[in-house]
């Protein structure tokens, strides 16, 4: 119990004895049903003893990873932009700026399985089957050089995998290593001289991205009430590609406004929550993992300026494909099947009414 500061443990134990454990019950709530518990209680013990039955291998995992994960985490789990790197970094933990990945840092494989199953893919959590989760986790192990390419991860092989940094953690020891040393309260003659050793304004330790900016620009640009913030931002950020898609809009505005079903637009806006992890909409929207979708309706495929589309989407646009209702419906139902080789990692909208709602919503932002 050394993990608790002494005084806290004392308080807790006093509490335990002072209040009877068998307090009077109020009879509120209702019993949780077995199926309900099974649906929510999915956490995995570190020894993997309560894993679901299933399996997946590295090769299947590689395909799934490319479809569902690579858009943020990179084809080889090396990470894209600021998104987490999942592989690499072995033996860097005692270096300056250690690279913390599943292979170099995470102590338990159960954590990886649980997190992928519970929270990934980002924006479409809990859409993967257990076998798919096994396969993706197997691929993450492979990308960290921890298993061979013929490895099959299952509830049975799971316990055989130990992550390299399993022994790399100690329980909080501040009570022993810090608290006794942090008690001196000097009031006068505490030091002879004071020199500046580092200034924030010099910004010589800030991450790469900030070097191009001054703090003032950042403060201006992040003020949500500053009407010009979008433009300031774009100017200050070299890697942000031009976002001049909007000016094209007036040319097309000659067309008569589309009639909209307001309720359907509203429903579509809700369904759009599944998309907004990657796609931005509205004034000042910027390309994210996916292109901005302002004016996407009836736009030629692969043409949102400044976004790096897959080859197949560009080719489709050059072949004349336009994002009309029919094409959008087909794409949204099953993105991978509709256009093989495109980069959108999204499982698809199975319900016709969800597709219709989102198309109506996309129309509404294309007026």
């Amino acid at each position, binding site marked *: 119990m050394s993990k608790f500061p002494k005084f806290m443990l004392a308080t807790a134990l006093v509490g335990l004895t002072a209040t009877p454990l068998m307090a009077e019950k109020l009879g509120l709530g209702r019993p949780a049903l077995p199926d309900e518990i099974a649906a929510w209680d999915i956490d995995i013990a570190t020894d993997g003893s309560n894993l679901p039955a299933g399996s997946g291998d590295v090769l299947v995992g590689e395909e799934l990873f490319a479809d569902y994960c690579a858009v943020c985490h990179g084809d080889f789990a090396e990470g894209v932009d600021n998104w987490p790197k999942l592989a690499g970094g072995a033996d860097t933990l005692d270096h*300056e*700026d250690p690279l*913390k990945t*599943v292979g170099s840092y995470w102590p338990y494989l159960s954590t990886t399985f649980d997190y992928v199953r519970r929270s990934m893919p980002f924006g479409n959590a809990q859409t993967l089957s257990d076998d798919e989760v096994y396969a993706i986790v197997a691929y993450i192990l492979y990308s960290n050089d921890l298993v061979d390419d013929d490895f099959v991860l299952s509830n049975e092989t799971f316990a055989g995998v130990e992550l390299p940094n399993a022994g790399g953690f100690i329980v909080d020891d501040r009570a022993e290593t810090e608290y006794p040393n942090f008690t001196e309260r000097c*009031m006068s003659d505490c030091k002879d001289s004071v020199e500046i050793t580092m200034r924030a304004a010099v910004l010589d330790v800030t991450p790469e991205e900030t070097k191009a900016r001054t703090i003032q620009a950042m403060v201006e640009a992040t003020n949500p009430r500053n009407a010009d913030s979008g433009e300031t931002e774009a100017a200050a950020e070299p890697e942000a590609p031009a976002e001049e898609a909007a000016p094209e809009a007036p040319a097309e505005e000659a067309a008569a406004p589309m009639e909209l079903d307001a309720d359907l637009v509203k429903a579509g806006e809700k369904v759009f929550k599944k998309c907004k992890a990657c796609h931005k909409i509205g004034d000042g929207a910027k390309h994210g993992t996916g292109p901005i979708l302002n004016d996407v309706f009836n736009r030629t495929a692969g043409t949102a300026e400044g976004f790096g589309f897959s080859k197949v989407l560009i080719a489709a646009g050059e072949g004349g494909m336009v994002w009309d209702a029919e094409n959008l419906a087909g794409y949204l139902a099953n993105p991978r099947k509709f256009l093989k080789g495109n980069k959108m990692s999204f499982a698809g909208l199975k319900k016709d009414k969800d597709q219709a709602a989102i198309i109506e919503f996309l129309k509404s932002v294309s007026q």
Partner: protein
Amino acid sequence: MSDEFEGVKPSRRSFLTGAAAAGAAIGTAGAASAEGERLITEVQDWASGLGDGVDATPYGMPIEFEGDVVRRNVEWLTADTISSINFTPIHALDGTITPQGCAFERHHSGAIELKKSDYRLMINGLVDTPLVFTYEDLERFPRSQQTFFLECAANTGMEWAGAQLNGAQFTHGMIHNMEYTGVSLRTLLEEAGLPTDLTGKWVYVEGADASSNGRSIPIEKALDDCMVAFKANGEALRKEHGYPVRLVVPGWEGNMWVKWLRRIEIMDAPVESREETSKYTDTLEDGTSRKWTWVMDAKSIVTSPSPQAPIKHGKGPLVITGLAWSGNGAITGVDVTLDGGKTWQEARLAEPGKKMALTRFYLDIDWDGQEMFLQSRAIDETGYVQPTKDQLREVRGLNSIYHNNCIQTWWVKADGEAENVEIS
């Protein structure tokens, strides 16, 4: 009096600039010219015409002149704004209660919309009877109410390697302090029936959003002072803070205060979830990492003057103010130095410190107009004295990321502007 203010019949916009100019003039001149200040000698629009009626704003926002007192995001910190964090404008606030509308947000899968009628809380695991509660059920338990700070473990984390961000909002703004109303976690667990032997038991808590952000909490803490809260500062929690129900874990890192709380499980071991292994663990110089570093140690910050709140009035009376807090109990004192730590003087606490809540301090001085190296130092009821950055680095190195509770230095220059610096 400056010419530009002469004869201004202010529109709202010109009033803004005019007021700033007038303020500066008063500050330096100290008195109006012989004929007096027009703001006083002339009847102003607002003293003659009418203001808004009571129906103009059924739920009020701050007046437009306070439009810069808002949460801000540091864009380069995270890959996008959905799994991200913003910062409380502590440089512009006073008192101790943080208004919900500008209290910082941290989401892992975005702030979800969860209706009270769709809300369910499950308690399962090693209990006599696994239970499901509705929101209405929670309202029928005896309530408790208390004020606590919530600090993200990463607050000040960008400053480990050196002075980096120029503003108290950015260096120390991952904190807020609210008065919570709810039900003690202990009461709910007892309703489900606790195991007779509590030794080595844990409580796993998770949220209803896509990240679910599960955390393991030792049973001693869960039964001590944790709260299942549904009101903050007298009104419903905001969406971004977990509406309709969040967990309150007093004094412990904000990540454990699970929002949209949906499940509580009594277990005989910690889960070792993502948020308690790959994140929120503190890597030391030799590459080993501390885990279960839950407590937020004593810390303080001068909120004004500071880089975003420079001194504009020149020398003379100056209010130095800031915040102090400790996850190990109440703040018992705050010291302030003007000379970078050569000499310290005790600041005045606005109210006696409360356990695990923000304490406001003031030091009223007659500023001589010379540069200052301004620092504050918190002392809590355990006798812990807030350490310097060097003291922390000596134990932890530079890669710790979390739990940076070091003394902060503002270099206040003769012109009143301030900058984030490190000093010897």
